[in-house]
């Protein structure tokens, strides 16, 4: 008798997995950089190429690193939101100008407004490779210890900003050196 039940039991097992599978998003590829230290870099600034920006200088601050380029169409659509964000003075936004001609990049910012405390020239895209950038724009949330806590792939949308990025930033800013805040603590980031 039992052996005739085997097909049924196997099927119910598969059905269980399928139900679980419905809640998952197969298109979401998790970044292996989340909760890992942000790779250190030192790059010239877009507006004063003689001056270098070192990512180490940001230790102790929560900041956003937005990867952008003047050739990137989606960046154009996200930029006004970033400009608003920078005016609100909640969190410093730095730009990683990825594989771009500095002149084009400066013109682009003149036209659309500059959302960045400073933009850094990653002309050959080496820093982008260190950060695992596979599409532009991408935005990294980095905490006081220099650890990447979240990554937005594609343009930052108002809802992603309100539900995930800003709540996470606030929690990270309140955190002390002893407390660890992960993005899983913010509902909107899941």
């Amino acid at each position: 008798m039992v052996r005739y039940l085997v097909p049924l039991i196997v099927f119910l097992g598969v059905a269980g997995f399928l139900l679980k599978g419905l809640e998952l998003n197969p298109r979401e590829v998790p970044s292996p950089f989340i909760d890992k230290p942000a790779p250190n870099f030192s790059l010239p600034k877009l507006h004063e190429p003689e001056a270098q920006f070192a990512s180490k200088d940001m230790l102790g601050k929560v900041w956003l690193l937005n990867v952008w380029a003047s050739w990137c169409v989606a960046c154009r659509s996200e930029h006004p939101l970033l400009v608003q964000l920078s005016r609100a003075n909640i969190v410093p936004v730095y730009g990683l100008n990825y594989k771009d001609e500095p002149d084009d990049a400066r013109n682009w910012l003149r036209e659309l407004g500059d959302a960045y405390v400073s933009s850094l020239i990653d002309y050959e895209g080496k820093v982008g490779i260190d950060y695992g950038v596979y599409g532009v724009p991408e935005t990294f949330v980095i905490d006081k210890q220099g650890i990447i806590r979240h990554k937005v792939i594609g343009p930052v949308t108002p809802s992603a900003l309100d539900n995930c990025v800003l709540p996470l930033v606030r929690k990270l800013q309140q955190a002390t050196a002893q407390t660890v805040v992960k993005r899983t603590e913010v509902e909107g980031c899941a």
Partner: protein
Amino acid sequence: MARPAAQVHFILVAVSFVCLMYAFIYNDFSVKYVASVSNSMLPIQYRIAAIWGGHEGSLLLWALLLAVWTMAVARYSRNLPLDMVSRVIGVMGLISVGFLMFMLFTSNPFDRLLPAALDGRDLNPLLQDPGLIIHPPLLYIGYVGFSVAFAFAIAALLGGRMDATWARWSRPWTTIAWSFLTAGIALGSWWAYYELGWGGWWFWDPVENASFLPWLVGTALVHSLAVTEKRGSFKNWTVLLAIFTFSLSLLGTFLVRSGVLTSVHAFATDPERGVFILGFLVVVIGGSLALFAWRAPKVGVGGRFGLVSRETFLLMNNVMLVVAAGAVLLGTLYPLLLDSLDMGKISVGPPYFDAVFLPLMVPMIFLMGLGPIARWKQADLPDMASRMKWAAAVSLVMALILPFVMGEWFALTSLGFALAFWITSSIVVSMSERLRKTAGNSGGAGLLARIAALPNAYLGMNVAHIGVAVFIMGVTMVNTYEVEKDMRMEVGDTVTMSGYTFRFDGVTEVEGPNYKASRGQILVTVDDKTETVLFPEKRVYFVQTMPMTEAGIDSGLFRICMCRWANRWATVPGVCVFITNPLWAGFGVAPS
């Protein structure tokens, strides 16, 4: 009551299908579905095909085909016992109810859009291809057709009469459904082959697998039904296969429509719909497997058979097909299993499938040559060996020589040829033995007449098996002798591959019904004689301004010439493919 009910059901579903078709033909963009997949500039044949170009309409087509099958069963079952017919129609009716509810609650194709859209968003340009007109309907006829075998199996379980008769009744239905599914898959494969960017003729994409799984198990079912009918054995097994075949068709629907797996076919996905189909799946499959667990133990074993016999060969065929289906299913669902166990994200690609599939198919195809000449119940191995010695010799010689004739020798190529010739020559042996038997008493009738006098089922089987041989031949040739050259061509440039010279004669601008195209002209010559002219196009559709490429193809019996644009943005055609053998997938109908 069942028969008239089936007819009314068909009429009602057909009316709603015709309504939707009317909305498409007359561009009624106040229907949301029409507005989302059609456009007033779309040519009429694509406006009709666009009915199944999206989720809601595909479902309606599915429901319509189910109604057609149900009505066909009601019509062609006059000589079946009434209680059996009503059970079969009842089961199919329940499946219909499930699909109609799914449509009504989650995906109504008649949802209104008020105020109406000025024009539609147009059919995805990728789908504007003759392939769309025939590939989905054929595939669906096959998918849905397995519901008949399923309904017969359930009816037999319910009635407790698991004798050879139900196998005899459901066998023709199963074979017809199987033939349609085969044709549908073959067409889809051809479509994917010439469409740039769909990964070639077969890519083990989850949705391709979803259609392949019912095919594998359905093939096993076709064979196992023969044993149950002729010898009364494998009864439980056949019922289980019938349940599995249709279950896998349903699972295919679930995988395509729910978005649990990533796929090139996932045109519209929605998790809420997924929950509904999953629930339906659990009720239908879980219910029937529970019924199986309850009723199957009471079924006795059938006729006994010896270790070497046709039953054994068919059993091995079944085991290998089901194992192959299991391997494909595992590979398809594996990423999902790991992900739901939080063990990481992976994807399973062609290397896995090739690695598990080939070793299973090679022995099966070897047995395919032996099975048909083995006797039922008890066969004699030395006798079979002596009957098959010429077939074996022919296939070995061809396997060794042919690759050299074609140019270069590879082990796998040789194996492919060996298998293809093995099947063909074993069919020749089997046919000539049969014909010799009839030669005496047919009084000198012509060879063709004597062939025609053989049983249809036997002929159908041979046609299907020859189809497999041709298919193996095609795959072998494409994998080994396909010549492809990637190059940039300026006007007047020529390139020669395997004796065929391609000359690029320039680009002209042409205007289609709903697109503008740059059409390249490529003259193909052999020894300065014109062979054919190819017209690869790059189209920009007016509505969804995505540039699309169309390959220029000319296919003959033994070679395909194909030329396509290197990519969507190129200004001159680039890639030329030349293949010495078309990929054929044969299929046969075996009405018994």
